[in-house]
């Protein structure tokens, strides 16, 4: 299963997953095809409800695809789960999986035994991984007595305790303080770059993807909209985004005219209640378009307090692909 210079460790082909609900059939994944190479940190970026967790669950053998195939280390996750499971591990930022009245070390040792690790090796790995994550002084505390950040570090150590070839992480830094999140990101980078472990990172945290992912697939409504390196995706937009601070905040329908202007790829708007303004971010294909947008906004009797150009981020890439920002998309999905 070689592909180019590196071995392909995760591969999906036209992966589809449907769920039955009271409202009818829900398509969570729709024809997803991707390839991930050994040692890559591969981001799956999308708003809540985009299909990220479903993809991770299929790849970690917890869910069968409705159609298509998914292979990990060459094995079909649907048909050969028993061959896939010793090679993988997974963790979710939302999980609090552990036995409360047992120490962090005891919990980690327990989870290592599910993979048949000799106890001596298990303790060596627990010590080594904990030291990397700054957990070593908390290993003997009961699980219930750990703070959210340290529980999350335990979860990350658990996901690597069996030295898996491929690790699936679903929002691993959600709800964590900045320092903990940074320490987890550094740890993930070291596992991928120094140990050649493949990490699939499902997240809606764009800065996280930007910071550590080699490649990113942007997913929305179960479909992959784009897949490339974060820098290539940002370069594809052509020009920096235009940001306008508008006061008073205009009703959403007044902004809709922006989408109709030639060269506008999409826009997103957030209200800053403290300052009583709307920050309208418009993804444009050129500097001329940015000028046109500014003039059109002023002409439509919106009071533009200030405007500036912003370094392109993955948020703008998403806006360009979908026409809406993450938050608007999540509201649409929830509705």
């Amino acid at each position, binding site marked *: 299963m070689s592909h180019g210079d590196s071995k392909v460790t995760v591969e999906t082909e036209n992966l589809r997953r449907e769920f039955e609900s009271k409202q009818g059939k829900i398509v969570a994944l729709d024809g997803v095809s991707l390839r991930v190479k050994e040692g890559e940190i591969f981001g799956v970026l999308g708003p809540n409800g985009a299909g990220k967790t479903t993809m991770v669950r299929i790849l970690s053998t917890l869910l069968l695809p409705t159609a298509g195939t998914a292979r990990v280390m060459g094995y079909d996750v649907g048909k050969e789960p028993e061959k896939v499971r010793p090679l993988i591990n997974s963790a979710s930022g939302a999980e609090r*999986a552990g036995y409360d009245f047992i120490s962090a070390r005891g919990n980690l040792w*327990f989870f290592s*035994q599910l*993979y*048949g690790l000799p106890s001596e090796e298990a303790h060596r790995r627990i010590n080594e991984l904990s030291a990397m994550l700054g957990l070593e002084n908390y290993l003997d505390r009961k699980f219930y007595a750990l703070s959210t950040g340290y529980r999350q570090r335990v979860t990350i150590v658990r996901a690597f305790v069996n030295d898996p070839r491929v690790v699936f992480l679903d929002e691993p830094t959600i709800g964590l303080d900045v320092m903990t999140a940074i320490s987890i990101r550094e740890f993930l980078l070291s596992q991928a770059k120094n140990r050649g472990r493949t990490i699939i990172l499902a997240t809606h945290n764009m800065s996280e993807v930007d910071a550590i992912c080699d490649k990113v697939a942007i997913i929305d409504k179960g479909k992959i909209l784009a897949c490339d390196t974060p820098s290539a995706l940002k370069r594809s937009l052509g020009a920096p985004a235009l940001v306008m601070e508008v006061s008073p905040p205009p009703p959403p329908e007044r902004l809709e005219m922006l989408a109709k202007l030639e060269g506008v790829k999409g826009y997103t708007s957030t209200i800053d209640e403290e300052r009583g303004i709307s920050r309208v971010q418009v993804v444009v294909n050129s500097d001329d378009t940015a000028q046109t947008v500014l003039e059109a906004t002023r002409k439509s009797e919106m009071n533009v307090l200030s405007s500036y150009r912003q370094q392109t981020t993955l948020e703008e890439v998403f806006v360009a692909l979908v026409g809406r920002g993450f938050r608007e998309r999540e509201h649409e999905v929830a509705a």
Partner: protein
Amino acid sequence: MKLQPSIWLRTAYARMWVRTKSIYGEPLWVVVTIGFPLFTSLAMALLYRSTGLNSAVGFAVLGGVMISFWGNVLWSMASQFQWDKQQGLFEIYISSPAPITAILVGMSLGGIIGTAPSAALVAFAGWVFFAPPINPFWPGVIVVFGLTLAALYALGMTLASLYLVYGREAEALNEAIHEPVSLLSGVYFPSIGGFSPFPFALQVVASLIPLTIGMDALRRTLFALPGLPPAGFDAIYLHVIALSVMAGSLLVLAQKALKALEERGRRTGTIAVRQR
């Protein structure tokens, strides 16, 4: 799936260790598990003694010992996977190479080890306070006790897989099952045989519960009538066969039910509980 003895043994041992540590990590739970069977069996023993049924006092003490294990089977075995699922642990088990039977056996052994001290305390207290007359056939007692625990915990394994289907209602199911089973299985009085107060049809139903067979066999091997020699294996061989068949078939049933549930869960997406 090819059996890997190393993973199987390590998983079973680790799960047993977790169960035992968890039981003793919660002091209040230890008090509850000891207190409930202790006081109930003492009350029953006092009742027997006050009504002149001195030879039946031992039934009450034995009932207290065995009800400790039955409570553990219900609350720490049957409901366990449902709680594990709520905690996100079940999906960790399923996505690991660990055989689910090893986890179940580990849970059972941990439950037995964790419950043994409270059962022993009930037996000790009953002996100190009431000194019930016993006339034991010890080899029979040991065999029947072991087989009864095997069958009881195998029942717990089967219920554990079935409770996965019921979600949070599992706790209500435990409440619903606990007392009727205690009554039918004759924990504190003979519910099958010549001394049973139940009609024959109800005795047949009661006989389907491993605890009923186990209790009857234990009473026969521990409390032979005074003046008569202790009962031999001829008095309990049917019980031994029934308990062996129950333990074996419930184990197979639990394994098959869990496998079927895993497959169903992978199809329908019900293995994991979304936690946000």
